[in-house]
């Protein structure tokens, strides 16, 4: 493509128009059908009405069985003991109530009968990350204008494209780039979106999706700032807030993780789910417990153990229930499946709620 194209004559022009038309159709298709579908299927949590796959439970009748939630687990991690072998189901006798024939003798705590298989419970509704935030009025459109065309420069696409396309594929994209730091983001977006000669659609969609995630993240951040009592999350951990911050932890990959909106979004989702699922009343505000657990590639809770007990059984139990109720989580982003299945830890502080 160059200035000489026009001189090639009618055939060349017709070809160019045809290709352009095809490309537009393809783009339209991807924009209106593929991307929404992909966005819907990838980061969204499983549907609310799932049926747990338990050995001794009859299949449900909701017709929405998930194929198999209990995938083979990832290889044993250093930090966590191997998954507990499921205990054999108790017999009918074991689960029978404590007999109280003397009318009202109060028995001690009832049998704690574990289920044969730990099955993830259906996801509770979580905020899907697809909420498109409204762009800030201060947005400068320049960056997108410069980065995008480069990123999507396809050989196939010819003349009319640049202007028409530049707007099309980013209906929900916002000028987040401005906040995202002058150097990092554009570079990364470039890297992500640089097309291979032919298809390009996947990369474009990846870039788009990423941008949407970033937007969603920003949106959450805005919300978190508005409702100061809640929220939190790794974003704020950089601000010197007197040790009250939210640790994203660390490690070898952390530097890379923390720059990745996919990671940050996922991290925030998990944190919000756990908090929402946690109920506790009573006790004093000093109570703190740390639980170690792992999230499998499908988002299932692989394993958990109390790493540091609060020395209050009821509190520890409430924290374990919170993790179980929050599970299954959405599947971690592919790049971080290892990190999440290696194990994470969550510290639950009762805080100053019970003063």
């Amino acid at each position: 493509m160059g200035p000489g194209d026009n001189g090639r004559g009618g055939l060349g022009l017709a070809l160019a128009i045809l290709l352009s038309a095809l490309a537009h159709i393809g783009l339209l298709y991807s924009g209106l059908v593929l991307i929404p579908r992909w966005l819907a299927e990838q980061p969204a949590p499983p549907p609310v009405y799932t049926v747990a796959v338990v050995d001794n439970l009859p299949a449900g009748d909701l017709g929405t069985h998930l194929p198999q939630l209990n995938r083979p687990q990832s290889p044993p991690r250093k930090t966590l003991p191997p998954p507990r072998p499921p205990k054999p189901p108790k017999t009918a006798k074991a689960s029978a109530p404590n007999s109280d024939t003397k009318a009202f003798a109060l028995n001690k705590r009832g049998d704690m009968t574990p289920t044969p298989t730990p099955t993830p419970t259906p996801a509770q509704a979580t905020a899907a990350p697809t909420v498109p935030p409204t762009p800030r009025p201060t947005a400068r459109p320049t960056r997108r204008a410069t980065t995008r065309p480069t990123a999507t420069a396809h050989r196939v696409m010819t003349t009319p494209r640049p202007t028409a396309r530049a707007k099309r594929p980013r209906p929900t994209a916002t000028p987040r780039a401005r906040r995202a730091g002058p150097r990092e983001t554009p570079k990364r977006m470039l890297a992500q979106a640089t097309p291979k000669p032919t298809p390009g659609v996947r990369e474009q969609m990846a870039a788009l999706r990423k941008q949407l995630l970033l937007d969603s993240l920003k949106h959450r951040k805005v919300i978190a700032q508005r409702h100061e009592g809640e929220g939190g999350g790794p974003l704020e951990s950089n601000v010197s807030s007197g040790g009250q911050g939210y640790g994203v932890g660390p490690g070898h990959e952390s530097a890379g993780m923390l720059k990745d909106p996919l990671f940050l979004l996922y991290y925030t989702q998990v944190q919000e789910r756990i908090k929402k699922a946690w109920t506790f009343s009573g006790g004093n505000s000093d109570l703190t417990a740390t639980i170690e657990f792992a999230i499998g590639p499908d988002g299932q809770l692989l394993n958990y153990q109390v790493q540091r007990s609060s020395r209050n059984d009821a509190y520890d139990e409430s924290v374990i229930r919170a993790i179980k109720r929050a599970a299954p989580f959405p599947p971690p982003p592919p790049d971080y499946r290892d990190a999440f299945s290696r194990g994470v830890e969550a510290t639950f502080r009762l805080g100053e709620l019970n003063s």
Partner: protein
Amino acid sequence: MRFQPYGATCAQRALVAVLGLGTLLLIGAPAWAQSQSGLLHFDIVGPGSKLAPIAISQLKNLGGDDEGEVSAHFVNVLSRDLELSGYFRLIKPEAYIENPQQSGYQLGQFNFTDWSSINAEFLVKGAVTASDAVVTIDAFLYDVAAQKQLVGKRFSGAPQDVNRMARRFADAILAGITGQRGPFDSKIALVSTRGGRFKEIYITSLDGEDLYRVTNNPTINLSPSFDRGVGHLLYTSFKSGSPDLYLFNLATKREIRISTDRGLLLGGAVSPGGNSVVAAVERGGATNLFMLDLQGNVIRQLTRGGSINVNPSFNADGSLMAFTSDRGGTPQIYVMNPQGGEARRVTYSGSYNTDPAISPKGDRIAYQTRNGGFHIAIIGIDGGQPTVLAAGQHPSWSPDGRYLIFSADRSGTSRLYLMQVDSGKIIAPITKEDGDATDPAWSWWLGE
């Protein structure tokens, strides 16, 4: 989850707003965010809710409860009690997916996803077998997410005992979840003007069922107290013309009068053992505390002097007694060993502190303090700084020590209110607005 202390400066907030994601991308994780184990770390401050969502399914009818009356009764009382406990939020039955008559109630016989999908954290299921003479209820508490049984009980009794079965199961549920038995299998005595202008003594349950009228005389009846076995109720009545103590036997419904020639009886409390009372006896302007046997003979004089000593109250095992005395110039709370010894002053702040109630464990005292109106306050048994909880009078502790019941007039009628002590939360009024309800006394548990 708060990301900043409440008092965060505007500058800090601005920093958050301005730097935001950009900073994050450039700087990465700060050093202090690293967990020692090298794992990803979440920090979760404060539960999403203080109230655990619980679903209470109707009991499966195994025979004799075709109309579901027993089941409905059990579920109603249990629901009311669990709501009053301050630990739960009941999920409305309209949301339930499962039909309890068509599914099982034991582990493995029903589908937990029917309950996790309505976001229940806990689930109560059970079964009933009823005949004219005997009702048997099996009841279970399940942890929905873990799909495990936390509590399982079988209750068997007469049809009129279904209320109590529900209360005992509520207590067992609290034991299973909080580690501490609930307070519902107990009685509340109170003074009420319902049904007339006279102050009469009644006994009820926390859930308002099983109201029983103890006195029926056109005078004034006051200051009920239970013995620990909940076999007797002591109260003061003017029905003979002058105030006397009466010990009412809850089983036989008979009462004995306790009087003394030492002076005028101005109220008292029955000892936990039930075989003696501590009475305030007035003579010549001085009021002192005497321990009397049930015939009115003096076992021991506990206070001496010309001051006023009233409002005796015992802890659960009777090893401590609190009372009000104005020996220091103003009414204040004192404690002493009822077997004798020196009294020790507990309250020093405020100039009018009365009506002490020692917690069952004996570690705290609730009392009323007057300071532009009456308020309920709490103080350690060794004194210290009191905590004022709410407007009200005449506090009484639950047997588990987690709750107080007291009277307060908030709408022109005095009612009894239930409060969770540690949170200071007033959970609900216990009495309706049918006459003034005052002077509550919370009994020990009715059974082991």
